[in-house]
């Protein structure tokens, strides 16, 4: 599914290198967790994968099912099935949430040569998924994320993921800001989407999330590289010992 080899990326604006030879393979159907200290480059990795233009890839490759992702614009990557749940979902005044959801869904359908959804079908689909995530339709009438609480924004990200049914979902700290009940609801939302042809990269600081979303592999990222990989038990070890060892080693 996702294959990253020797990825180097720097910030376009100041030339600072953030990703320094990162390797990562996520086979189809698997969930990989990435943990690591603040500033190690986790969000940067997620942005580079999603195609944000603030970063410049200077070396290495990223492929999704063998196709070069780095050649594609952000919208084209999304149409190929890449989805990023943002660490900080943006508030966009004046853009109605429903209008936005419909635009995203239909844009992807068009890009894949599928027909647009009719408004009633679209409404039904949103309602079903919103109910499952305990999101009120009232909230969706507002501007995108404007005035949403931190937790509501995160749920809204998962709602978008559920509607778009991506091939590769990258969740950047989706658990932060969620209360205990919301964490369960959101995790269940993610688990419902688990399937043999869908992969997840879950970035988190807390082992707790991984009790709900069971990872196949846990990676430690430090200073722009994956410095260790292991099974779910690695998360417990990190929880107990922290990152000191990796920060020194990297």
């Amino acid at each position, binding site marked *: 599914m996702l294959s990253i080899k020797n990825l180097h990326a720097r910030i376009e604006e100041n030339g600072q290198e953030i990703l320094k030879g990162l390797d990562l393979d996520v086979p189809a159907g698997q969930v990989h967790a990435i943990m690591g200290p603040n500033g190690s480059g986790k969000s940067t990795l997620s942005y580079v994968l999603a195609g*944000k233009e603030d970063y410049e890839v200077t070396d290495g490759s990223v492929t999704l099912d063998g196709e070069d992702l780095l050649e594609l614009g*952000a919208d084209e990557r999304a149409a190929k099935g890449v989805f990023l749940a943002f660490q900080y979902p943006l508030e966009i*005044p*004046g853009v109605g949430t429903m209008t936005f959801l419909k*635009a995203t869904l239909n844009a992807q359908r068009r890009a894949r040569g599928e027909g647009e959804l009719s408004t009633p079908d679209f409404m039904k689909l949103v309602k079903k998924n919103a109910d499952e995530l305990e999101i009120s339709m009232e909230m969706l009438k507002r501007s995108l994320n404007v005035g949403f609480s931190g937790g509501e924004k995160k749920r809204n990200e998962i709602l978008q993921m559920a509607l778009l049914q991506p091939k590769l979902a990258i969740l950047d700290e989706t658990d932060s800001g969620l209360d205990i009940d919301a964490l369960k609801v959101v995790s269940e939302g993610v688990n419902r989407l688990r399937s043999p042809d869908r992969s997840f990269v879950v970035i988190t600081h807390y082992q707790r999330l991984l009790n709900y979303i069971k990872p196949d592999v846990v990676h430690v990222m430090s200073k722009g590289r994956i410095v260790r990989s292991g099974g779910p038990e690695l998360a417990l070890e990190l929880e107990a010992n922290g990152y000191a060892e990796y920060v020194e080693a990297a």
Partner: protein
Amino acid sequence: MNSIVRPIKTAAETALVEQFTAAKASLPGDKSVRETAFGAVVEGLPHRRVEEWKYTDLRALMKDAKPLAAAPGKAEIEAAKASAPFASVRKPDALLVNGALVELGAMPKGVEAVSLAKAYADNHPLLAKFGEAGAPGDNAAIALNTAFVSDGLLLTVEAGAKIDEPLHLAFVQQGAGHAAYARVLILVEEGASLTVIESHTGKGAHQTNSYVELLAADKTDVTLFKLQNEDLATQHLATLAMKLGAEANLTTANVSRGSALARQQIFVKFEGDNTKASLNGISLSGGNRHLDTTLFVDHASFNCESREQFKQVLDGESRSVFQGKILVRQNAQKTDGRMMMRALMLSEGCEADLKPELEIYADDVQCAHGATCAAIEEDYLFYLMARGIPKKDAEAILIEAFIDDVLETVEDEALRGEIHAVTHDWLQARD
């Protein structure tokens, strides 16, 4: 050596003088009024060293003066009828083709409409009201209108009349290239309410000049909506001058989408206490076009409120000007005036000139103004694109979001839908 260079008249200035000299004998009404008005431009058009025209140098921008429009023929009238906008909202109640009022529908009860041509012929008493809204007669756009205008409309809404259906005044241009002048006086008597839709459309490289005056008495409620969607080759000079009585309510929305050069002048005078006005505008420029909105709000009474909200979207090499001034006179205590102007710049080559001004002589007032110029927020764009929306569509969504709150001031849903269609059309036509 003589260091004082007397400016040589431009082609347009020379042509205007010739036109006026040739036409004045046959123009209707009081000749001296026309002579006086023309006096303001006889020496030349305003240029960049004249403060109000600093950003819109009419002398440099107006390359020629088109001949005065002839009376429209049958074919032109039919074509104009077929092309008038807002058909789904309101068919034209008054149709002006090339400046001539060619059709006047039955007015609702409480409204009286007289063609200006007829009013001149009958020496109608309402003619004396021209200029009463207080806009400066020596302003070049106004002066030219006063000098050349021969048709238009006089509307009176009688006291207490509540006119539910909007009245649509459609100004349509047909033909290749002429100068068309039109003038409208709207007199709203005490306690009456009215909504007017003013549309300006058509084909051809014309020079249009419209002057709309509103005299709204006490306790009136008036909404004026204007769409300027003229041919992209036109020059459009327009003035909206309004005088408001006490405890009145006014809402205006101006959408400026067409023309190579357009200047919309808006003058408001608060003549009575406790009155509220909401003035809104959107301008959509592109190519090499130049759109100007010039606003003057005169708070001359106690406890009045004004809200000015203007948004400009610029693309290509276009230039967009917004200059707005709020004057609060000494007796206008408890004035509450807030003016906001924002420009969204979509290209490297565009230029926005924003000039907000407050001039306050009263001490117990609340006034504020703000101006912003910005490009599309890259992070917003990325968020939308990361969800699969192509760049052009993502930009369109963000541009519509930018003007959304101004559009919201248009209460009539069908009308709002029509304006959406206009902005949508502009978004599609962007290159």
